[in-house]
């Protein structure tokens, strides 16, 4: 079983990552996030001053990891659709969720790596010091945020199947998350009705928890983590329902997605 799981995930890795050389991995997972943080740091320093740098960098570390996972998931579904293997997953004599779970391992590990590496870059490049005495809580936050973002990614990946052109959808999702989840500024600054939307999105509470642990905000970390986990669970449930409905509809109509 473990061997099959590993093999399945490895094949998924080879299919999903066209850049499986060390050199390209270095570019896309180490250099690219670093450039993103430098870009954001330049905006923050110019607009609100360097005193605000830690605040905005922490938000962007979480966002960048989320971005990687969302792109990975949507790309995975897009490729499955393009090469006609999405239907095979439905028709396979195996639970669809087991298939999705196995394919999720690589994007999950990727997102986790980028998240943890981002925290290290934050410390080395921007002096956003990791609270080593709270390392356990920090890792817990990273895991909970990764789980909730993974659920959101699955949800968006399912939704993306409804669109013939995914690029615009993906960009809108990423742009929207930057604004709604308090990545660059506190979600409290948003108008009340928009903030109520941001409160039902993953990442918002997770970023607040991270900032609290770094001493940049003062909230109850436990309560924030609980909310983040519950929201993640909610999105996972909705994503599972969507997959079930689509699976049912596909079996009945013989067509799964809008043709690309």
């Amino acid at each position, binding site marked *: 079983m473990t061997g099959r799981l590993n093999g399945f995930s490895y094949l998924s890795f080879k299919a999903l990552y066209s850049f499986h050389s060390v050199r390209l991995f270095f570019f896309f997972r180490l250099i690219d996030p670093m450039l993103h943080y430098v870009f954001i740091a*330049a905006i923050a320093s110019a607009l609100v001053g360097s005193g605000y740098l830690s605040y905005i960098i922490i938000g962007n570390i979480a966002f960048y990891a989320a971005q990687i996972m969302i792109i990975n998931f949507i790309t995975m579904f897009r490729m499955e659709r393009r090469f006609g293997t999405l239907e095979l997953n439905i028709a396979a004599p195996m639970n669809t969720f087991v298939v999705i779970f196995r394919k999720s391992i690589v994007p999950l590990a990727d997102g986790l790596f980028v998240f943890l590496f981002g925290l290290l870059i934050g410390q080395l490049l921007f002096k956003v010091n990791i609270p080593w005495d709270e390392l356990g809580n920090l890792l817990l936050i990273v895991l909970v945020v990764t789980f909730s973002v993974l659920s959101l990614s699955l949800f968006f990946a399912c939704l993306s199947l409804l669109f013939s052109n995914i690029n*615009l959808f993906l*960009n809108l999702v990423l*742009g929207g998350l930057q604004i709604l989840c308090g990545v660059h500024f506190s979600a409290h600054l948003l108008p009340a009705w928009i903030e109520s939307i941001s409160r039902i999105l993953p990442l918002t509470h997770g970023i607040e928890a991270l900032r609290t642990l770094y001493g940049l905000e003062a909230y109850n970390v436990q309560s924030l983590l609980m909310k983040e986990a519950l929201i993640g669970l909610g999105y996972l449930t909705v994503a599972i329902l969507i997959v079930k409905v689509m699976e049912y509809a596909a079996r009945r109509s013989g067509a799964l997605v809008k043709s690309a």
Partner: protein
Amino acid sequence: MNSAELLMREIKYFTNFNNKMYQFLLFFQPLVFLTITYFLGQMREGIEVERFIVASAIISMWSYVLYSSGSALVSQKWSDTLKMLVVAPVSLFSVILSKVLSNAVIALISMVITFIYSIVIFRFDLHIPNVWLFFGSVLVLVFSLSVIGLMLAFIFSAFENVFAFQNLILTPLIVLCGVFLPVESFPLFLQVLAYCIPMTWGVEAVYSSLSLSSEVYQQAGFSLLLSGVYLIVGLLFYRRIEIALRSKGNWGVM
């Protein structure tokens, strides 16, 4: 077909809502950056609003030029029109130059859209003290973006998988060209590098026109001069591509 007609056709094609790739860059990206600017601006009073609206516009303009002009030459191979261009009675350089110029003009539309959003949606008090001076400096910037586009089209056609690295080019150049932080605040070697890019002078000229600084003419002059040098180098590069395509039938990834 004359140049104006070609430009109109390009504008119609790229701003068409059926062309989904560029919808985000032209219409939605300015909204995202302006929203971030708006809320970040609430964190500190007395920020120079005009400068950051223009900065948001430059990001959108640069993104558009990178994604559109970068593929100006390679896309001819994808659509199987490269061979027609090679045997056409105009040089490859002229064809690509017209494309990158039209892309830069379309990028100007994203600046206009950014201004409209900033006034209508965000109610920013956008005050441009000398509109003609500002417009002139923006045209200088647009020209510098065109020659950068010309170089990008060459680079994208010369090397494999450059498209995968687009994001690695996008943000560093915005930072390096002083869109947010002044180039003088960078280490010396980065300053030298930045001032070798015509966009840097163009960006400085645009900001100087906002503050009515007398340096605007000098900066615009340097930008035009440097753009001219890039244009000549581009002409030589494209001649080389043409010769290679005619004699060997291939060039770079084409």
